[in-house]
């Protein structure tokens, strides 16, 4: 599995899916509750701050192009300290998987299949994840390519169909909330989208090298960020800053308002389809990072062998994540710090150690060995 190759186009598609991920549904209410009608500014600020982070992550992974972060943290920090860092990252991925699974379950059981127990939704998603894992990263990347045109189309259709509902005065008065709130809200939109991309530190080694890799990656990050900004803006101008904080899924409520000529109504399912597909890719990339890291940490001979047990663990944890929404919203705040740690603090630390080691000429600092 470690020699599965992803092409640069597939990487770009995966980046876009990852950045959009579960943010379509979750982000607007978080941002708006902090920044109210200036949330669109927070969205853009988050994009401006976050995109360089994505670029930094890419550059960081190029230090050791063929190694994943689990491998080179062990190499730089030694077996035990590096192992600790690796376990930290793996725990991060596992929690990501469980949290997002829970989000999917909550969404489906509250909006669509209200009589279905949430366990069933989790089970279906876990089966999907296990099957995807067994198919390999190449297949997953190709599936991303297959779905991408349709998702993009649906996304644009969503925007176009909502245009009649837009009322630009909902974002006024501009910038009365104060920079502090705008900054705080932009933390949400930069960390949950771009900082979570540290998952790609595990995935970039699988990408076939070509001179376009960096360019495609950055284009993907750019498009993803634009999509996030537009969603925040759209939700804001369609529903309005007063109502959003009280809605759990404001984008879904916005999609419910689509009404073209009294004929095209009740098509919020297109948003749900979009969301589930992009969320699926976020989950599977996290899960893949988890499995790959586990294999490398424990020096297993086959990445696919532990899929079902880890899937079961994710299933169990998905329920344990939180007993209710209020608790969840409270815990989410700490996620910001966790994302920043994994995406910025730890890589910077490792980079510093890499520089120190290079300066003092450590012989076993050879890259390109998997």
């Amino acid at each position, binding site marked *: 599995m470690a020699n599965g190759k992803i092409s640069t186009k597939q990487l770009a598609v995966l980046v876009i899916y990852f950045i959009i991920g579960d943010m379509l549904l979750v982000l607007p209410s978080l941002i708006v509750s902090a920044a109210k009608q200036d949330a669109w500014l927070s969205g853009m600020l988050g994009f401006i701050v976050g995109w360089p982070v994505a670029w930094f992550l890419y550059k960081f992974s190029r230090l050791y192009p063929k190694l994943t972060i689990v491998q080179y943290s062990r190499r730089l920090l030694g077996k035990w300290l590096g192992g600790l860092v690796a376990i930290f990252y793996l*725990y991060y991925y*596992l*929690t990501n998987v*469980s*949290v997002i699974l829970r989000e999917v379950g909550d969404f489906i059981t509250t909006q669509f299949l209200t009589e279905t127990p949430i*366990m069933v939704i*989790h089970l279906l998603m876990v089966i999907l994840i296990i099957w995807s894992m067994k198919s390999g990263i190449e297949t997953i990347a190709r599936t991303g390519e297959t779905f991408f045109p349709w998702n993009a189309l649906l996304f644009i259709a969503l925007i176009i169909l909502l245009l009649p509902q837009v009322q630009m005065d909902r974002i006024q008065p501009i910038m009365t909330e104060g920079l502090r709130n705008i900054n705080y809200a932009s933390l949400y939109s930069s960390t949950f989208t771009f900082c979570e991309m540290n998952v790609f530190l595990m995935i970039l080694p699988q990408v076939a090298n070509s001179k376009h890799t960096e360019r495609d990656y950055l284009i993907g990050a750019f498009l993803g960020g634009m999509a996030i900004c537009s969603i925040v803006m759209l939700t804001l101008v369609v529903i309005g800053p007063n109502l959003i904080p009280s809605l759990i899924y404001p984008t879904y409520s916005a999609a419910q308002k689509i009404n073209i000529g009294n004929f095209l109504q009740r098509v919020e399912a297109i948003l749900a389809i979009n969301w589930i597909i992009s969320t699926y890719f976020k989950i599977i990339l996290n899960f893949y990072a988890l499995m790959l890291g586990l294999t490398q940490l*424990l*020096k*297993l*001979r*086959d990445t696919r*062998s*532990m899929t*079902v*047990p*880890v*899937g*079961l*663990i994710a*299933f*169990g*944890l*998905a*329920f*344990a*994540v*939180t*007993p209710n929404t209020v*608790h969840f919203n409270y*815990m989410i*705040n*700490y*996620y910001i*710090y*966790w994302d920043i740690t994994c995406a910025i603090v730890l890589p910077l630390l490792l980079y510093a150690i890499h520089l120190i080691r290079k300066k003092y000429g450590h012989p076993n600092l050879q890259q390109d060995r998997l």
Partner: protein
Amino acid sequence: MIHSIMIVSIIAIIAAGFELPNQIKKRWKKEVILYVLFLIAGSVLSVYALLEIQLPSPLMIPELMYKPLHRWIYQS
């Protein structure tokens, strides 16, 4: 309660039945042990989930780690 445990054990045994014989045949001792370990952990967690018993959330660890930091930022 018994139902949940039964369902989970059946699923676990079926999964093991597909994957373990292959690994045992190849004599991958470490993989088999780890597989069984993780499988048991996963089954226990799944049983808890099915019974809807609330376990400590995995988000407790970041909460513990970052609470002081959060408090310090909010005070300033």
